[in-house]
């Protein structure tokens, strides 16, 4: 029995001919996931804004209880974490050890994000504010909680691929992480600022 001949190296960044539909960079399935998640969060944010039309004053008052500074800090934390993940993708082939460190640091910033988010939830709970307090909080807990679950999933992915940081899996995990980043950038204005 002859050993299987390798047809493609799995430790190289995909070239244009290996890319997804119509030249999408990276894996096609991760783009399907990214687009699906963006549609789900986009629909949720549009639903929040549409529901707000029924009670603008109540929504504005409810929104004033959220911690905008925490949201701003978390934005900087996530875009910085995304930077580390993007660097890891570029270094995975040539310097896997450094890529591993960057992935662990990126996941660490994810933990910082969740800690800030947990403190925000704790402050709201201390004021007796729950999902039933007002329709705004139903949406904000749902959207930010669902997003936080994605942050946790992304951290697990980053740490898993950090064990053996080959370019292709690192690229997939980083793409998921950037999607989490992108959703947060669109979520903050609607939930916290407008």
């Amino acid at each position, binding site marked *: 029995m002859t050993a299987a001949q390798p047809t493609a190296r799995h430790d190289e960044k995909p070239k244009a001919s290996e890319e997804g539909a119509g030249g999408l960079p990276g894996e096609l399935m991760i783009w399907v996931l990214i687009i699906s998640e963006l549609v789900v969060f986009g629909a949720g944010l549009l639903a929040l804004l549409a529901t707000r039309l029924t009670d603008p004053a109540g929504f504005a008052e409810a929104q004033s209880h959220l911690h905008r500074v925490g949201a701003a800090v978390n934005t900087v934390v996530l875009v910085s974490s995304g930077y580390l993940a993007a660097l890891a993708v570029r270094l995975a082939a040539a310097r896997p050890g450094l890529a591993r460190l960057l992935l662990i640091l990126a996941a660490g910033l994810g933990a910082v994000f969740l800690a800030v988010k947990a403190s925000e939830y704790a402050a709201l709970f201390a004021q007796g504010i729950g999902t039933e307090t007002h329709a705004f909080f139903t949406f904000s807990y749902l959207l930010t909680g669902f997003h936080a679950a994605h942050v946790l999933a992304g951290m697990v992915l980053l740490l898993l691929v950090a064990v053996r940081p080959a370019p292709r899996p690192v690229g997939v995990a980083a793409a998921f992480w950037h999607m989490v980043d992108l959703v947060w950038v*669109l979520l903050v204005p609607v939930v916290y600022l407008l």
Partner: protein
Amino acid sequence: MKLHYIWAALVGLSLLTATLTAANPSRAGLVLGVLVLAGLKSRLILRHYLDLSQSPVWARGFDLVLAFVLMAFAGLALAA
């Protein structure tokens, strides 16, 4: 463009968003300013973190959809 420039631009746009919000502008100014800044950040993430700059057709498609979504956000926010 080098990644650290993209990171610096994203942090800068985030600080601009915080500054704009703290400046307490008119409702329309806040809505349009914050959403334009969010659009710019999204575009940077899509093109440079997610590498869509390698696929100009897809990048333009995402830009178009993003613009429609942000306009819908702005319309609903200003109607409230």
